[in-house]
């Protein structure tokens, strides 16, 4: 057995380093799950509506890819369909990043060597990272369970199984990351391997679920055996609120133990800083496309951009498919139609309302892209790399604008991708290609000014505060997500709402297109960005 000497101290160190990222991750996930329960209750007020939902989702192939095998008609099973897979994926990604950040990344920067030479056992860093990751998943599960158990309509045992299987999926991927961070010799490579396995498991489950058999009454889907090859599939097949099965839970625990054993075994066989897959060699000469500030920024930002683009596409597509399901339910439910007709300030179309409320919320969540891009920019300065860059004939403005223009372009492209995915998802789900396609695309694009304003605020903080901007950016992001998800439900005061740019995006297409807030936000974004540049050109470069 490996010794645990020093582990506890490293756990405290990791918690201290993650004191901002961890709460925000937890907040985001709780907002996504527990926060959406009220809107589900509103959308499916009676049994008729629930039956309609399940009987339309269960046979749909697209539905099964993103929502799993919908089985049983109650609020809990609908919540499973709408939320489980997504939340599980995000918990998996958060766990993967957390473990690699506190293991491989430390070795990459050399901090691992320093820690390793202190009084800690060889396996302490990995044990500590895993303890933090497992702790995060447990805390998340407990909070989600606590929040859901307050919802009367949800069966408490079902909620316990729901929270437990989410947590176990998260922990499983933490242990996958424990292996990949032994295999690859740098953080990104390790994350890449782990995310690839996540995608692989997602695809297996999606295939297994789409090939599943539907029962005669059309309310239960039995997954194909392929689903049973995937830990995400196991998590789903626990079937909380409709069976609460124990076998998949055992499978999750057993496979996690297996992965952890493998990770510790590899760790005991390798040198600190080394890995199983040695780094590949790269080109000896730079391509001409790299030879400029912009070329370098593209190189540095592209991996992050692609990752987020996938997020934008999936969110956009799923939202549209979900909205279409909602609409079919809505058309079969008198109660809902009355409810919609009575709510003020809308054109009475359920699909429109869904899209115009959900897209700005999703935009706020995906603003994490802007935060990570800005963090990359700040990393250049805090790591001292900027010294080598600005020591050449590269001007400060050019360097600054290379990141700003690239991230702005990234924002526009990502929102367009979200809109396109939404439009196409809707067209597939409803088998109609009509003006809705344009509406959905536009409702994604109207978030551009809010995103750019969000970025400008972070830039201003970056120029004025230099080093401490990461904390600011994540807190501001958490604030915006919080406001977008809860301010409406809990009726928070208007001034708290006004601080988030995302609340000023007009709800298109449910209300008529109002360009005034868009113009004001765009102008403000440009002004703040220029002000940030002005300050940046006149301050000391922060060097270590």
């Amino acid at each position, binding site marked *: 057995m490996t010794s645990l000497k020093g582990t506890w101290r490293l756990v405290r160190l990791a918690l201290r380093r993650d004191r901002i990222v961890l709460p925000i991750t937890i907040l985001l996930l709780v907002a996504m799950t527990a926060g959406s329960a009220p809107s589900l209750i509103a959308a499916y007020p009676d049994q008729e509506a629930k039956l309609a939902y399940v009987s339309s989702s269960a046979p749909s192939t697209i539905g099964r890819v993103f929502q799993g095998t919908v089985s049983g008609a109650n609020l809990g099973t609908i919540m499973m369909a709408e939320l489980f897979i997504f939340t599980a994926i995000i918990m998996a990604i958060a766990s993967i990043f957390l473990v690699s950040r506190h293991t491989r990344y430390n070795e990459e920067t050399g901090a691992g060597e320093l820690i390793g030479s202190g009084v800690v056992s060889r396996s302490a860093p990995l044990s500590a990272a895993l303890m933090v990751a497992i702790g995060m998943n447990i805390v998340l599960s407990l909070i989600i369970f606590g929040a859901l158990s307050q919802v009367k309509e949800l069966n408490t045992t079902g909620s316990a199984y729901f929270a437990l299987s989410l947590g176990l999926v998260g922990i499983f991927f933490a242990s996958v990351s424990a292996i990949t961070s032994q295999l690859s010799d740098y953080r990104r490579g390790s994350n890449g391997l782990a995310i690839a396995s996540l995608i692989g498991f997602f695809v297996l489950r999606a295939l297994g679920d789409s090939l599943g058999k539907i029962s005669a009454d059309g309310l239960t889907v039995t997954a194909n055996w392929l689903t049973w090859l995937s830990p995400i599939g196991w998590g789903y097949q626990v079937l909380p609120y409709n069976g609460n099965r124990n076998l998949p839970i055992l499978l999750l625990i057993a496979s996690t133990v297996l992965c952890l054993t493998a990770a510790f075994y590899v760790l005991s066989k390798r040198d600190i800083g080394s890995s199983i897959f040695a*780094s590949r060699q790269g080109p000896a000469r730079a391509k001409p496309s790299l030879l*400029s500030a912009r070329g370098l920024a593209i*190189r540095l930002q592209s991996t992050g951009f692609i990752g987020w683009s996938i997020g934008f596409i999936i969110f956009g597509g799923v939202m549209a498919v979900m909205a279409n399901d909602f609409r079919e339910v809505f058309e079969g439910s008198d109660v809902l139609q009355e409810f919609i007709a009575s709510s003020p300030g809308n054109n009475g179309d359920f699909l429109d309302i869904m899209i115009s409320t959900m897209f700005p919320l999703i935009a706020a969540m995906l603003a994490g892209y802007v935060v990570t891009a800005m963090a990359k920019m700040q990393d250049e300065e805090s790591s001292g*790399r900027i010294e080598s*860059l600005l020591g050449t*004939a*590269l001007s*400060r403005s050019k360097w600054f604008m290379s990141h700003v223009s690239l991230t702005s372009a990234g924002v526009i492209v990502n929102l367009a991708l979200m809109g396109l995915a939404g439009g196409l998802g809707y067209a597939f789900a409803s088998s109609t290609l009509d003006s809705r396609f344009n509406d959905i695309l536009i409702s994604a694009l109207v978030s551009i000014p809010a995103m750019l304003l969000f970025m400008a605020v972070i830039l201003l903080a970056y120029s004025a505060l230099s080093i401490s901007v990461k904390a600011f950016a994540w807190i501001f992001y958490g604030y915006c997500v919080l406001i977008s998800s809860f301010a409406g439900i809990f009726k928070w005061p208007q001034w708290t709402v006004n601080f988030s740019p995302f609340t000023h995006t007009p709800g298109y297409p449910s209300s008529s297109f109002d360009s005034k807030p868009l113009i004001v936000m765009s102008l403000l974004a440009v002004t703040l960005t220029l002000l940030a540049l002005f300050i940046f050109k006149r301050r000391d470069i922060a*060097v270590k």
Partner: protein
Amino acid sequence: MEKTENVIEIKNLTKDFGKFRALNKLNLEVKKGEVHGFLGPNGSGKSTTIRILLGLLKKSSGDVCILGSEPWGNSVELHKRLAYVPGDVNLWSNLTGGEAIDLLADLRGGIDEAKRKELIDKFSLDPKKKFRTYSKGNRQKVALIAALASDVELYILDEPTSGLDPLLEVVFQNYIKELKEAGKTVLLSSHILAEVESLCDRVTIIREGSTVESGELSNIQKLHRTKFTIEAKKATTGLSKIKGVHNLKVKDQTTTFDVEPEHLQTVMNSLAKLELKQITSHPPQLEELFLQYYQDNNSKRS
């Protein structure tokens, strides 16, 4: 004012970081075509001075002139004419050494292809490795090659060789000598005294943000204590009472001590009375000279 001779001219430079005064009326003059050593204990302000010279930091007060202009606000034009190797070389972990060299040299205004090839060869760098996999010395080589492959007037090198092995140290010194022959100017901050001794025409020594000594190495040495070793028939212990005599040590027959230059004559007069059997004297080693400064610095600190 004629600025023509001096490539770098700093007068009364002060830099405050909040309440902390990192540079206090620092002076530095680097003449065209010389290799200038820039020395001082850790934290004395060498890197800060260099960053002000590059326009990365803003001075609090004083005059700074580099290649004929004030660096703050003119850095783009200036940087086309100089190359810089930072003290802490940190580059992009997923770029190869070769890519980083090309990028930095290109941003500076172009690369001498033949020179690049020769430098990579001489410094035996594998340009295909990702930066994160390089050792400390190899990281420094990347920055050095990027700088030396550019044809500019002024090279500013902040502790460029602290990670190089002795063989590469020789390669480095040869390149600096080559630059000197070509009439280039070099500002070299270093803790390696042998390197300073063999390369530098003049040095500036700073301590706690102020210049304490500046000039030709040989002149500086002249200003310092001469070391004596004597054997005499009479007792030598009385010498310690003479003003300007330090570190007197008597061991068996031999006595050693240091003498301040302005008291040489009085000491010589006293020595004459001791019935000397043997006498040797030599100027201070560079090493001893620096120890004097650095120790003074430490005693002040505590």
